């Protein structure tokens, strides 16, 4: 055995080194060895070489046992810490600059110096790193915006009955009215149809409504027995079947244009239906209908001017123009009452007697029902014309401008209906003008800014030209 020090000359006695013998021996610094209690040690600390004594080696070994690392390693345990070197060596390395380290440094070439751009880039990188949390939030909100406004998610949540409620509304657009047999469509008619459809499609998509475009071309089925107006009824009924979840159905003629696509139907009308409609036709009564019924045999509800006065009983919302009801743009709600109305709206006995008188077909028939059948009135509400059906000056314009009827740019009316434009007016011209006006009114602030600049330049050019011309002349 090798010992770090020569064995003690005093056999069995050991060095009198108090520090080493401390736990066992007397600390008093006695020079003479002393037998511990119980005689000999049963075993010696360092292999039994010197049994009853603590040697340097034995103490060191003991200390090793205590202070040394544990037998299992707690470090270098992870994959990366074990293989960091290997991994980093396997990665490609890029020397910065042309200079290789092996090359001898040459005078005059200078040391490698970081460029300013690089430094700025590093600085920016550092900044980004510091602001990482805030930037992440920004990015997330940006993503959310994209998700909701650019992708179809937008439509999904506008439609959901709990969020936007758009699936409750269906727009029925009557295209191709009277087309087919009666007349051929020219390029203007095509253009009108294209614009009108595009306008409604965009609107329906924006708010998550359903759009049903129906082909109203004269069909054999309806081109007989004055049945054309039955088609409107059939169309509404089919739509009710096609969209079983929808509640309100908005009928629109082709010659209508939604001027303000930013208005939702909910906000514009239905969230506060009672404020936006009137039940008592005496508020505006161009047909001079006697209202309410006076007959004593009718029940209270039928004799009341406003039906039962509850919103839940409103099943039909129609505007009135200067000549009575206007069915160019109106709402019906799905209900049993509506089923009945749609059922009795067209009746051959009525038409046989009245087809010469009823120019407006289903519109006149509805007026007739309203006037004569008491069950109709308690479920009908009227909406001010300009809420959903403003007229251009060409329609109803015989008595000058009417505040109730005619479109006003300053009030940003919702919808324009170019009613009757096919009778001697220019449908396409009107449609074009209103489309341009709508675009102009609904520019984004950025577009407005751009337009104002281009207009200013144009004006300056023009004034210059005028000035030059003045000089010349």
């Amino acid at each position, binding site marked *: 055995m090798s010992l770090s020090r020569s064995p003690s000359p005093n056999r069995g006695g050991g060095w009198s080194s108090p520090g080493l013998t401390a736990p066992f021996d007397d600390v008093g610094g006695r020079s003479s060895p002393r037998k511990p209690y119980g005689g000999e040690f049963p075993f010696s600390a360092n292999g039994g070489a010197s049994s009853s004594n603590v040697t340097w080696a034995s103490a060191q070994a003991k200390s090793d046992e205590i202070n040394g690392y544990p037998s299992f390693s707690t470090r270098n345990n992870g994959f990366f810490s074990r293989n960091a070197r290997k991994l980093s060596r396997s990665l490609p390395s890029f020397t910065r600059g042309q200079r290789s380290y092996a090359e001898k440094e040459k005078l005059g070439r200078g040391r490698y110096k970081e460029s300013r751009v690089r430094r700025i880039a590093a600085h920016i990188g550092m900044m980004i790193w510091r602001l990482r949390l805030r930037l992440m939030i920004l990015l997330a909100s940006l993503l959310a915006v994209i998700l909701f406004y650019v992708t179809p998610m937008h439509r999904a949540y506008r439609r959901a009955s709990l969020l936007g409620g758009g699936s409750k509304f269906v727009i029925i657009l009557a295209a191709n009215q009277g087309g087919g047999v009666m007349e051929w469509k020219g390029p203007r008619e095509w253009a009108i149809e294209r614009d009108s459809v595009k306008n409604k499609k965009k609107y329906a998509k924006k708010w998550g409504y359903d759009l049903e475009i129906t082909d109203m071309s004269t069909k054999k089925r309806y081109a007989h027995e004055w049945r054309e107006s039955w088609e409107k009824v059939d169309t509404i009924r089919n739509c009710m079947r096609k969209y079983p979840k929808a509640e309100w159905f908005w009928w629109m003629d082709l010659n209508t244009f939604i001027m303000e696509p930013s208005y939702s139907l909910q906000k514009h009308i239905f969230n506060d239906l009672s404020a936006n409609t009137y039940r008592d036709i005496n508020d505006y009564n161009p047909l001079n209908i006697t209202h309410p019924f006076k*007959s*004593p*045999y*009718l029940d209270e509800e039928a004799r009341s001017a406003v039906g039962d006065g509850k919103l839940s009983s409103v099943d039909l919302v129609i505007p009135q123009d200067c000549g009575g009801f206007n069915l160019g743009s109106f709402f019906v709600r799905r209900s049993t009452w509506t089923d009945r109305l749609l059922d009795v709206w067209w009746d051959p006995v*009525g038409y046989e*007697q*009245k087809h010469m008188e009823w120019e407006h077909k289903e519109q006149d028939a509805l007026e007739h029902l309203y006037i004569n059948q*008491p*069950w109709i009135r308690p479920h009908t509400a009227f909406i001010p014309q300009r809420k959903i059906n403003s007229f251009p000056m060409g329609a109803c314009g015989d008595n000058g401008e009417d505040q109730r009827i005619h479109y006003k740019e300053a009030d940003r009316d919702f919808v324009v209906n170019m009613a009757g434009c096919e009778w001697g007016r220019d449908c396409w011209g009107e449609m074009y003008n209103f489309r341009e006006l709508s675009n102009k009114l609904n520019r984004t602030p950025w577009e407005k800014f751009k337009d104002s600049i281009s207009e200013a330049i144009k004006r300056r050019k023009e004034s210059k030209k005028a000035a030059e011309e003045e000089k010349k002349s």
Partner: protein
Amino acid sequence: MQFAYLARKTSQPPPYTRLSRTSSVRRRQLQLGAVAGCILLFLIFLVTRIFSTSTERAPPGTPETIIVTVLDRGSMSKDYISRIEENRQDYAARHGYGTFFAENADYDLGSSPRSWAIVPALRHAMTKYQHTTYFFALSAHALIMNPSLSLESHILEKRRLESIMLKDKPVVPPDSVIKTFSHLKSDKIDIVLTQDGEGLCQGSFILRRGDWARFFLDTWFDPLYRSYNFQKAEGHALEHIVQWHPTILTKLALIPQRLLNSYGVDISSRGGKEAMFKDDDLVVHFVNCEPDANRNCEQEMEPYYNQWKAHWGKS
């Protein structure tokens, strides 16, 4: 230097711990809260129920059925009218029904035939008796011959109606393409009609109150039908709307004629012997006796009235 480790948790926890005082208090509070909540909910339920039904519930003593008859004091004799009234009132008294005698002159029919008056009369009865469910429209020229039969057990009771409804039957005999629906359930029925050899009979039918009844009567009474010169006025108008408008057909039940509308005279085009009154039938109807100059309603009624009087009369 080494600190002692914390004592290990035992891996065998004691099976239960004693509830602390606070938790038992809390528990009692919760129980109390739950009970209070239940009582509150029940009270709310009661209150809403009381207030919501207070407008709807029929006042006690409201008859379940009203017999509606239109009289024409201008053309009918006083004696005749009193017999009609007596007959209806006797039947009503036996079953707790009410009677409603309308006067033809009360309704402004314009130039249309007087027989139209039954339509506004029904509307009138529905206004007057706001809580009555059934309205039995019976022509003045008819007698109730078997007052022991109640309308419920005879016709209106759900199972009974289900069994007597004529399904998939041409509305206008013999071969109208419009047939009564074959899948109709009796609880969806709002009008019970009969049919004779010529068409639908509006001399005797039962109407159930509701939105549909109003819609039906108003549609039927449309001035365009009244001015159309239907050959049989309101009768043909009724056939017309039933055949053209499915929302009306879906609420209609046809039942065998003699359950509600037996005839007192033998008219071959209207069913002949088949339709004739037999003992124990509910109603005898002297159909079409008024406009026919060769017939006399009062004379036709005489033997039936005597028979009824002898059998059921009180005195």
